[in-house]
Structures are given as C-alpha cells and as structure tokens.
C-alpha cells in the first residue's frame, strides 16, 4: 500500500540500482545547494552585525547574539499585524482556491455559452498592466482604501491558477462527469461532489501559490492602506527595514550624533535587519508547507469509475 502511495509500480530493469543512487545523490546535492542560503541567513542573523555585514559568516555563527530578533519581535503592533496576515492568508487563499476551482471547471463546460471568449478575457489580464494610478483611483472610488477587503477582492480571480485547474480538469477522465450526469446531477452538485474531491493535488498547488502570495504581499498595503491596524506582518517588517535604510541615507543630509555608537556588534544595519526579517517570514512557510505536501502523493481516486 505504501508503494501505491509513493509512486507507480515498476518491474525491475537493469540500471535500477545505479539510477536510484544517482537520483538520490543528485537530489541530495541540489537540496544542499538550495538549503544553504537559508542556513546562511539564519547564522548571519544571530552573528555580530558588523562581522556579518562584511560577509564573513559562512559556516558557523560568529559573536552569537539574539538582539536582532529581540528588536524585531519587540516592534510595536507586531501581534496585530500578524493577525492581519493570518486573516488575509486564510481568507484570501480560501477564496482564490474556490474561485479557481470553480472557474477552471466551468471553463471546461461546453454548456457555458461563449466559454472560450470569457476564458480568454480572463487570461488576457495576465498581460495587461493599467498602471498604478488608474488602479488606485478605481479602488479608491470603490471605497476599498483602508479596507481589509482590498486584500481579498482583487486577488480572487487568478488567471494563472485558473489555467492550471482547467488543464488539470481536462486531463481527468471524461467518464467521471458523464456518470454523474447520467444520474441526473446538476452542475453545482457535479462540481462539489465529483470534481472538487478529484482536484485535490492541483488545488493544493493553487493553495500554496496563493497562500505564499498573500503571506508575502505588502505592495497593496503600501498603496491602499494608511491605517496601522490593517498593516500585515510583511508590511510592518518592510517599513522597519526601510526605516533602517533611509536612516543610513539620511546621514548624508544630517550629521548623526558621533557619540551615538555604542557597540557595532549589536547595532542593527539594514543588512542584519533584512536577514532577520527574511528568516522570520520564511520560517512559518516551512512549517506549513508539509501540510500541503501530502496532497501531491495521493494518486487520483477513481473508485466510482473503476468499480
């Protein structure tokens, strides 16, 4: 049963063992190459900031300290912005997944008049860029500025996700839907009872894409939100980083207090903040990710048809 879950059965062929060795070794190597940078960020964010800015921390932390994390986790408003982030990620992802599943499915249905026209109109928007100002004016006119729903509504219809779902649905056996239609099921019933359960792998993908996008997004806040209570985590961290940056630049105009340097090792630099922020933002993703992974390994369930 386990092998059933993890991949197709095969007959042993010559070259299986060497193939497996090379395959494992190759992935191990690439995984290390991909994992190292994140490790690099972790060790640098806990190393002395002046040494890490020189790029000298590569294998083990130097001058271990946690003041970067203490500073950032002590930012005012962090808890509320974390809640906003969670809210927009959960609600936004739910809405996008449902909409993508539904539209992706509907665009395969010949019963939808002019379906290819509607489909194309949706796809085309991927390549349009109206510019920030007209979009801002539209959203402002709709009363969505300083409004939580500005995070959700514009993100509901995602052409790319719809394409993925539609392509996936087209690869499903026709017999699935036909059987249900013979039973007299309506379109909504077919969608919820038959199609949705069979779409889980692609919906998991869409969910990952959408959740990561929601979690990482701060551009919309920058443009549409000035109310601090609606700042998501990413924006709070991003402004904190920008503050550090612009303070460094401001030195050009105003001469800072020369006596104001206490310890270079724990004085935050834009670099140290950037790395700490990256770790704080990516860690939750790493922990949530496995929840989705199991959907990639389950083979399609064809019980109804196979029976």
């Amino acid at each position: 049963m386990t092998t059933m879950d993890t991949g197709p059965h095969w007959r042993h062929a010559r070259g299986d063992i060497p193939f497996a060795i090379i395959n494992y070794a190759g992935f191990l190597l690439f995984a290390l190459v991909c994992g190292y940078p994140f490790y690099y960020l972790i060790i640098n964010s806990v190393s002395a900031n002046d040494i890490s800015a020189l790029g000298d921390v590569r294998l083990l932390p130097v001058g271990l300290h946690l003041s970067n994390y203490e500073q950032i986790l002590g930012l005012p408003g962090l808890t509320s912005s974390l809640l906003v982030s969670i809210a927009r990620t959960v609600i936004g992802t739910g809405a996008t997944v449902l909409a993508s599943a539904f539209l992706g499915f509907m665009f395969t249905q010949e019963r939808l008049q002019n379906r290819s026209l509607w489909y194309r109109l949706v796809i085309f928007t991927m390549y349009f860029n109206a510019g920030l100002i007209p979009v801002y004016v539209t959203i402002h006119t709709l009363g969505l500025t300083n409004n939580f729903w500005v995070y959700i509504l514009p993100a509901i219809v995602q052409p790319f996700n719809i394409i993925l779902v539609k392509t996936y649905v087209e690869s499903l056996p026709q017999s699935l839907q036909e059987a249900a239609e013979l039973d007299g099921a309506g379109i909504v019933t077919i969608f919820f009872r038959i199609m949705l359960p069979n779409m889980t792998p692609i919906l998991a993908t869409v969910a990952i894409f959408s959740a990561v996008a929601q979690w990482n997004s701060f551009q919309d806040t920058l443009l549409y939100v000035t109310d601090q209570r609606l700042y998501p985590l990413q924006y709070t961290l991003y402004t904190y980083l920008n503050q550090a940056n612009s303070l460094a630049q401001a030195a050009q105009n105003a001469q800072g207090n020369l006596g104001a340097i206490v310890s270079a090792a724990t004085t935050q630099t834009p670099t140290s903040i950037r790395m700490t922020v990256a770790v704080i933002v990516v860690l939750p993703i790493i922990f949530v990710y496995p929840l989705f992974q199991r959907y990639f390994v389950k083979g399609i369930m064809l019980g109804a048809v196979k029976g």
Partner: protein
Amino acid sequence: MFLVVLPFLVLVFVFSYLPLLGWVTALYDYKPALGLGGSEFVGLQWFEILVSSETQLQQIGQVLANTLAMSFLGIATSLLPVFFAMLLNEVRSTWFRNTVQTLTTLPNFISWVLVYMIAFSLFSTSGLVNTTLHDWGLITVPMKFLDTDQHVWLTMLAWSLWKGLGWGAIMYLAAIAGIDQSLYESARIDGANRFQLMRYITFPQLMPTYVVLLILSIASILNNGMEQYFVFQNAFNREHIQVLDLYVYNIGMTGNSLSMATALSMLKSLISLALLIAANAIAKRARGTSII
C-alpha cells in the same frame, strides 16, 4: 450557466479592464495633481521619444538582444522542472522526498537582494570561493565572478534556475499525482519497466500543462522582471545584463514621467497579447486543439 460565472467576470472587469482607461494618459503629459484636464496633450510624443537618436537605437538594440537571449534561455530550460518532478517522483522514501522538496523551494522565498548578499559573500574577491581557491594554490589573482562581462547570460540563467526550479516543479508534482493510475497498471501488464513508464506515460501526461505554460512564457518574452538583474548589475556587466525592464528602470522612465511609463507598459501589453495569440495559433495548427 452564465449567471454563475458573472460575479467573477465582474471582478475581472472592475479590477483589470476598467483601469485600462488610464492608458489614455499615454497621450498626455499627465500630472496627477492637475488631473487630465490640466495636463498637456502631447499625442504620440512618448512613443517617438523612445527612438529619437541613433545611439539610443543602438542601446535599445542591445537591450532587446539581452531580453530575448535571457527569455529564450529560460524557455530552453523550461523542461527542467518537468524532469525534476519526474525524477523526484521516482524517489521512494517519503521523508527524503518531502525534505528535498521543501529545501529546493526555499530559494524561491529569498529576495534577490539577499541572494546577492549571499553571492557577494561567496564570490567576491575576498569571498569564500576565491579564498579557498587561493588557499589551495589554484589561483594567485582573485577571479572576478561578479564584475565581469563574461558569460553574463549564463550566470543569470544559473541563478534563476537555482531559485525557481524547485518551486516550478510543484505544478508538475501535482499533475503527476493526478495521473490515472490505471494507465500504469495496464502498461505494467504489458511488461513496461520503470523508464518506459516514465517515458510513455508520465511524460506525455505532463505535456498539456507544460505546453500551456510554454505558451504563456512565450507571450511574456519581454517581461523578465528587473529585480534579479538590478541587484547583480554593475558598470562592468551592464552591457549584457540590461534587460528591457531594467533599462526602463535605469533610465528613470518609470519614476519621473508617468505618461512615459504608461506608454511603455501599453506597448508591452499589446506585444505580449499579439505573441500570445500567435503562439496559440501555432499550437492549434500543430496539435489540433487551441490551448487558450
């Protein structure tokens, strides 16, 4: 039928099509404070200004060459995520596969600015690679990895592959999970081995997804984004690293003149759409069915 999709189409119309009216600002010297009525009407000036001198044409030629080169390299390597997913699917140990998958998506979450910092730490003249090579006696003079005009396109390709490969494979992993298991069973009954299953079942089953994505990427040939190139650019590699998006940013068209920026993005939108339609037509002729 139509009524159930209507709410979604309204969203698309309101957030994507309605703002397109703003394209009209490309014909003005648009100043937000003064509104359209108070801004000067300039006709096609912004389009003409793009190509007003010979040196400029030369520069734009080089920029387009870079843009196309990097896009084509990207398209040429677009099968790699497919192979990545297929090979990962052959790994039988679940924990190993999940770990690999998690680790390989990590680079996708690290911003380019940080990627450059790591690159600097490893590849600068006093970076890890140069010091190691020097300690081993392989080089005497530090090698210039970051500020050289050699192999810029390939280096950039390598970085973007490293960053995007694991992430790009997710869609294909999902597609593999969706393959009808009965296909494998009947093939096995016919005596197919592992490699034959990969070649004759898994790979063809991934093709619809791949072809759709391929067409989408052909349509976005002009859009390489700029972040990656921005962080890696310096005076010494600029000639070959400057892609269209970066060029537009570098010469400040986006910051100072809103109308110029609008004109450019309008032009790009139209070219992309034309490419999309052309690619789709070719696919239709080749495969018999229209993709989009």
